[in-house]
């Protein structure tokens, strides 16, 4: 069994820890997939070699601090945005942590991502700058790219705390072939605490995770994103009419195909319970699965041709062909 598959099986069934022969490789693969903290959380309480136990205990503590810092960024954003009275929806890792959802356990969390109404962007920009955030990129081409075509303001970073915030007004760029309905996402939000911050509705959260996994990136770190989807589907399965809601809303946001694919592959790799009708394989599934598992025992990404294919595909989804060509050309010229 390949190391990637060993990692996947162990996450799904922690009791298999006793059978692991090559911990060094497993830990390297977990780190490379940003899953070390998740693995550490899953294996908490299992009988492990003392060295492995020490490394994983340190990883759990590290994930806990990452969570504290991420929630603090959300709190500082709340203090800045609350007076505006407009919706601010937390996304991805910070949302899972703020709502106590199971993908948060052991998860590494990156920048703070929030979704706001497009009309609110100028005000949001103004208060964030007033509260100590400043622009990261000062390259004028990328600035234009971000504002006009991507789904976010150019990145902001806090002067003192050195942490980034990404402000989105939809969850895929405007020029993508699939265009989720941002207003519907915001309208269906679930408020947290005093309501200044919210999270997406359960079905929308799964749809966003699927968007992030398949349509938004080149699948690098996909096993981690797929794990998020597995955990969310388990968390939400008990919500009334969840699967039906998920299908309807996915159709509304033109995301049904990625959501179904995410469910199938999560079921295959992580054993996620999904409705029977979902388990019909599409001919492209093996390619996606292979791409997700393309990691070797030294932590290297493998299958370069497959990876390149997915990278080009992900940009093709974001931009019309001519624009993509122009963007890649300009990037290549600047890099040289």
């Amino acid at each position, binding site marked *: 069994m390949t190391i990637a598959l060993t990692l996947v099986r162990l996450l799904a069934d922690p009791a298999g820890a006793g059978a692991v022969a090559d911990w060094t490789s497993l830990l390297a693969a977990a780190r490379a997939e940003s899953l070390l903290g998740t693995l550490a959380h899953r294996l908490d309480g299992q009988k492990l070699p003392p060295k492995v136990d020490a490394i994983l205990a340190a990883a759990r503590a590290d994930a806990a*601090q990452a969570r*504290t810092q991420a929630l*603090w960024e959300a*709190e500082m954003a709340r*203090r800045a945005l609350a007076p505006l009275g407009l919706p601010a929806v937390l996304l991805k890792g910070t949302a899972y942590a703020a709502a106590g959802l199971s993908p948060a356990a052991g998860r590494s969390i990156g920048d703070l991502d929030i979704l706001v109404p497009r009309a609110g962007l100028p005000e949001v920009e103004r208060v964030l700058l007033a509260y*100590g955030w400043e622009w990261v990129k000062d390259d004028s081409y990328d600035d234009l790219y971000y504002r006009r075509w991507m789904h976010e303001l150019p990145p902001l970073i806090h002067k003192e*705390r050195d942490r980034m915030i990404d402000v989105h007004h939809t969850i895929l760029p405007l020029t993508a072939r699939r265009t989720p309905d941002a207003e519907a996402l915001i309208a269906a939000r679930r408020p947290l605490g005093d309501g200044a911050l919210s999270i997406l509705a359960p079905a929308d959260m799964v749809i966003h995770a699927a968007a992030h996994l398949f349509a938004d990136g080149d699948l690098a770190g996909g096993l981690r994103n797929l794990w998020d989807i597995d955990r969310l589907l388990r968390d939400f399965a008990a919500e009334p009419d969840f699967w039906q809601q998920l299908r309807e809303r996915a159709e509304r946001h033109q995301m049904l195909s990625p959501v179904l694919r995410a469910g199938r592959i999560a079921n295959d790799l992580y054993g996620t319970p999904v409705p029977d009708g979902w388990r019909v394989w599409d001919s492209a599934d093996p390619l996606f699965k292979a791409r997700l598992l393309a990691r070797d025992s030294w932590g290297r990404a493998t299958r370069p041709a497959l990876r390149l294919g997915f990278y080009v595909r992900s940009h093709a989804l974001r931009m019309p062909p001519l624009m993509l060509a122009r963007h890649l050309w300009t990037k290549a010229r600047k890099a040289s």
Partner: protein
Amino acid sequence: MAGPRFIADPPEAAKAVALDGLTALYHRPSGLTHILAPPAPQILAALAGKPGDAAEIALRIAAEFELEAEDAEAAIGARLAELEAAGLVRRA
């Protein structure tokens, strides 16, 4: 004219260690460490779980900390702005 009211987290939210006249503070909600000089630690203690403006704070800390009467509120106001930016106090 005492300015806005602030509040700080309750005492158990932070751990303070004395380091030769200054205070090293570990703020648990943020995971951040701050080095504070008087009267900042006294201001935080005065606002721990109870709101106050600069004038109220001046009264609360007068027992422990010598402040020049004229400058007191202005000085406290300036420290409050710094503490707010650091996330250690927020508007009440």
